[in-house]
């Protein structure tokens, strides 16, 4: 999972220009990933070793993999693995940038390592105990009949894992998630919601009482709000927008799917009756309970 699109990262680092990025994004469909970029990505070869193999290729007519094996940079098993693993979409982008000479192999290697260390969130962000709870919760979620679509399950798995990561990163890890509840209508207390549309659609929301709202927002922004004002509500909208934005980045990176986020919405004291069933996960924090809701 990534928290920022690689192209944006390269742009902010001044490694490429907007025109170069544009060019790469537009040509992404026509490109094939080459072994060199993959080997660097998997940490099997350095940029320098890849350059050496490229140089050899100008002298002898052999495939990259063959030379890399002869030189002792890769073994047969690694070559097979590289040819068959699924790789993130951002590597395609990198391949074009390298092919077009916008990035050198070495710049790619350094940028990728920095990007991964800064922005990759792994499940290691969870403590073992929290991780077990969340995984149990997701398994339980899958038992609902409507969720027999493999793709849908995978998306939901990404969404829920990311949401817990976002909560841990920006709010805290002093919480306990409770089993998922499915209902037809939900009496909203203070609710911030956002619809995600595009290649996959999901209506997401967080609902809580007023004092929990104030505490959640205070923690998220690092302010000490004492009453429920415009800033508190805006902070909550910012939170859901941030999480869903990261979700869109991950889905764009890992599945090449494009999602559109609608502006977040805050509502108070209404009965929410969605067209499809609503699922919610109660998350009990030390300062109150937040219900995380989904309509699929």
């Amino acid at each position, binding site marked *: 999972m990534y928290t920022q699109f690689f192209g944006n990262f390269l742009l902010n680092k001044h490694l490429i220009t907007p*025109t170069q990025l544009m060019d790469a994004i537009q040509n992404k469909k026509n490109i094939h990933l080459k072994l060199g970029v993959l080997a660097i990505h998997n940490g099997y070869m350095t940029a320098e070793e890849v350059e050496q193999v490229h140089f050899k290729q100008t002298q002898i007519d052999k495939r990259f993999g063959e030379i890399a094996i002869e030189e002792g940079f890769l073994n047969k098993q690694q070559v097979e693995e590289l040819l068959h693993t699924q790789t993130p979409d951002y590597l395609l982008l990198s391949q074009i940038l390298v092919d077009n000479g916008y990035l050198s192999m070495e710049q790619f290697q350094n940028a990728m390592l920095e990007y991964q260390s800064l922005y990759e969130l792994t499940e290691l962000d969870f403590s073992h105990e929290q991780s077990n709870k969340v995984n149990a919760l997701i398994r339980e979620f899958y038992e609902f009949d409507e969720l027999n679509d493999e793709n849908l399950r995978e998306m939901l798995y990404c969404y829920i894992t990311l949401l817990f990561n976002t909560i841990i990163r920006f709010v805290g890890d002093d919480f306990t998630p409770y089993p998922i509840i499915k209902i037809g209508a939900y009496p909203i207390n203070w609710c911030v919601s956002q619809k995600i549309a595009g290649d996959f659609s999901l209506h997401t929301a967080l609902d809580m009482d007023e004092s929990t709202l104030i505490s959640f927002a205070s923690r998220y922004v690092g302010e000490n709000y004492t009453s429920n004002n415009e800033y508190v509500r*805006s902070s909550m909208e910012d939170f859901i927008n941030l999480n869903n934005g990261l979700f869109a980045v991950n889905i764009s990176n890992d599945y090449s799917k494009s999602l559109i986020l609608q502006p977040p919405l805050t509502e108070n004291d209404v009965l929410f009756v969605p067209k499809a069933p609503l699922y919610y996960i109660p998350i009990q924090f030390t300062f109150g309970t937040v219900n995380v809701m989904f309509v699929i």
Partner: protein
Amino acid sequence: MNLKGLTVLICDDSILFRKQMKDFFTANNCTSIIEVTDGQEAIDAYKENKPDIVFLDIIMPNKTGIEAIKEIISYDSNAYIVMFSSAGTHQYLKDAILAGAHDFLQKPFDPYLVETIIEKYFLSQGGN
């Protein structure tokens, strides 16, 4: 960084993000900060104030940031516009750059990234 003399237009429906940006610019001696909350207001405020640099959110009610940037650029092709969003996907990035954005910022607010973007702006203007 001394941003005295710089006129900045900040357009976002999030009061939180506007405040974070405003605090950043105020702390850097910038005294000319215009805040608006949707795309149409951004277009109007641009024409009225001719800011040096515009920060424009993509996802907004009424008129989106993409619609706004197109109108601003067609009014003034030299407008220096930075777009931002919490969703830094290649689609958003592509739309923003195609529409003429100079830079793209991913939320949440990060003062270091904003600084980098301002430095880039000054570089493009041929120094400070």
